[in-house]
């Protein structure tokens, strides 16, 4: 049986491989090729070398400013989402009545799509700012914090669920031993719970980090980059580059390649860093 399995392994893996190649590998390689071409549809490309990569930075500085904005946004949201989600998870793993209901409620925002959330929060925040005769577009910082609030609201519930599962898996004999040894709540948290849930922290950091960099729908619906491109994030900038000028499809594609490399590099660094902190159970 085992031998037969090994013999037919390529055959069994083939359907999945075909799907993977068609929907991921080929588009990715083709996308890389297109970033060196000038094209309007993907079939009429002509090779232009590194011109697109040069133009991505020289024509205007929106791409670099979008990078800094995205970086600031990601740093803020990674910190706030993880701290708040972890705090909620701690609170909801105690023996208080109604925790299940609250878990569901906190998780629910995650079930709504990004573009819808963007519209909802645009109405909510504009409604609030209307009291001061302002809108989200009056100042770039409103857009920034609006996006942060939105992102927190959407992602805290999801990360919370991951943390809850991890906290519930902390062996109770360890916690018991700690309390017998006279550890207070603070010591238990930092010496027992956090080291034990390190694998989940790795996952949550990875998810929030990449979510922050890849954010598009919410950005589009909430501010669309206004005012004056100051709240434009990388993904939105790439999309806008594609359609803002005749002949700039290749530049957008080049930006997309740079974007992929940046996000992959940062995510891999973070994974390597937090993996080191994980302890074997």
């Amino acid at each position, binding site marked *: 049986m085992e031998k*037969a399995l090994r013999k*037919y392994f390529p*055959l*069994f893996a*083939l*359907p999945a491989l*075909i799907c993977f190649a*068609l929907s991921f590998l080929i588009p990715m390689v083709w996308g890389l090729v297109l970033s060196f071409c000038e094209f*309007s*549809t*993907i*079939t*009429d490309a002509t090779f232009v070398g590194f011109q697109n990569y040069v133009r991505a930075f020289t*024509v*205007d500085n929106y791409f670099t400013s979008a990078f800094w904005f995205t970086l600031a946004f990601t740093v803020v949201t990674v910190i706030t989402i993880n701290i708040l989600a972890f705090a909620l998870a701690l609170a909801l793993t105690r023996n208080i009545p109604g925790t299940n209901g609250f878990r569901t409620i906190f998780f629910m925002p995650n079930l709504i799509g990004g573009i819808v959330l963007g519209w909802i929060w*645009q109405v909510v925040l*504009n409604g609030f700012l*209307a009291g*001061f*005769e*302002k*809108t*989200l*577009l*009056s*100042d770039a910082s409103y857009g920034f914090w609006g996006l942060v609030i939105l992102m927190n609201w959407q992602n805290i519930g999801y990360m919370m669920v991951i943390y809850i599962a991890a906290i519930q898996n902390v062996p109770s004999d360890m916690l018991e031993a700690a309390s017998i040894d006279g550890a207070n709540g603070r010591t238990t948290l930092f010496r027992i719970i956090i080291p034990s849930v390190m694998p989940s922290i790795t996952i949550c950091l990875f998810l929030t980090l990449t979510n922050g960099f890849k954010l598009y729908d919410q950005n589009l619906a909430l*501010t*669309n*980059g*206004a*005012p*004056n*491109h100051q709240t434009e994030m990388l993904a939105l900038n790439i999309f*806008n580059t*594609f*359609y*803002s*000028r*005749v*002949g*700039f499809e290749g530049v957008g594609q080049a930006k997309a390649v740079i974007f992929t490399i940046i996000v992959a590099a940062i995510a891999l660094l973070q994974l390597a860093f937090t993996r080191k902190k994980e302890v074997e159970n």
Partner: protein
Amino acid sequence: MKKALALVLIALVAITGIFAGGSSEDSGKTEIYFLNFKPEIADVYTDVVKPAFESAYPQYTLKVVTAASNQYQSTLRSELSKSAPPTIFQVNGPVGIAENVNTVAPLQNTSFYALLADKGMALSLDGNVVAVPYAVEGYGIIYNDAIMRKYFALPDKAVDISSADEITSFETLKAVVEDMSAHLDELGIQGVFASTSFMPGSEWRWTTHLVNPALQAEFGDLATAQAAAAFDFTYTDNFRNIFDLYLDNSITPRGMVGSKADADSMAEFALGQVAMVQNGNWAAAQILGTQGNVVSDEDIKFLPLYMGLDDEESKGINVGTENYLAFNKNASPEALEGADTFLTWLYSSDEGKAIVTNDLMFITPFSSFSADEVPNDPLAKQVNIWMNKDGVSSIPWVFNGIPSEQWKADFAQAMLEYINGNYTWDQVTQTAKDAWAREASLTR
């Protein structure tokens, strides 16, 4: 084991069948694929035009796909790279042609092009006619004459004219509007002008339409604007005149314009909360379709965009088009012939013309339409009146020569910063100039 393997193989064959199959139509009919630009009339194409055409010409099938609002360019691009690309598609002017240089087919020998009354309106590329306009539109300041009559009947009005028809210059317009602002309660309105919408995606009324008279005054015509490497914004003060007038006499305070969409502005007008709104005849459906609309058809009228330019009393509303049809040269010869047959039928047969006038509601530039074959909506009639007014000539749409979408975006954002108080007007002017020079050098 053998059985399992057989099952897997069958599944594989099925999967590859899905990917390799595609659909091929062998019914002997030629498919004409029309990618429609106007979502507001998508139903007319599928429910009225398609069955009528297919019963008149049974050898063809007409496939109409409508792109979502503001998504036409991206939809067109993805459709064009498919194996069954659109036969007929829309371009919005010279920029649209530049985006599709490898796709547009020559049209000078089609009978559809022969219908065009003023052949100068068609767009050319390398000596070939490649796009033919199909609908003419006009825009200006739409006003509610009932409110204007109420104002002119006021005993303490500050102007000496007695009807909106007598407004023929920026000075008069400004005097009337500012005096109306002082009498809001008597007039029962909350502002003279509807919101100056600046919500993302709603800036087009200012970045293209409002700037058009200034572009026309500087460049003269579309071809000059298209070829211009620089834009001096000579008439920036005139533009600012009317822009400030909109902002200062609006239902919405300056700080709030970022939360208003153009649909909000049209609703304010339809609900009688404001007396004026800048828009074009395509907005008639929006006004008449608003629930609780209080404006009656005969009270909806146009004023030109007065901004203190020279010789303004002889200028009318802005009339032109950004609706051009082009054929895809990569389509089959039969499909291209079908496309010509379809459009010729639509714009010259009695049945087609009735649909165009009554259902699609286009004012067409074709010689096959007589002067009384115009749509029955109040603004289309107004466009017709302004086009034929004695001593007044319409301002052509020069804004189609704007070098790129990026220019519009940059200009819009500069205006928004001015409204927010972060930019002076000089900075807005400078942005418009710099962006034009940059975009013109990048895209030509």
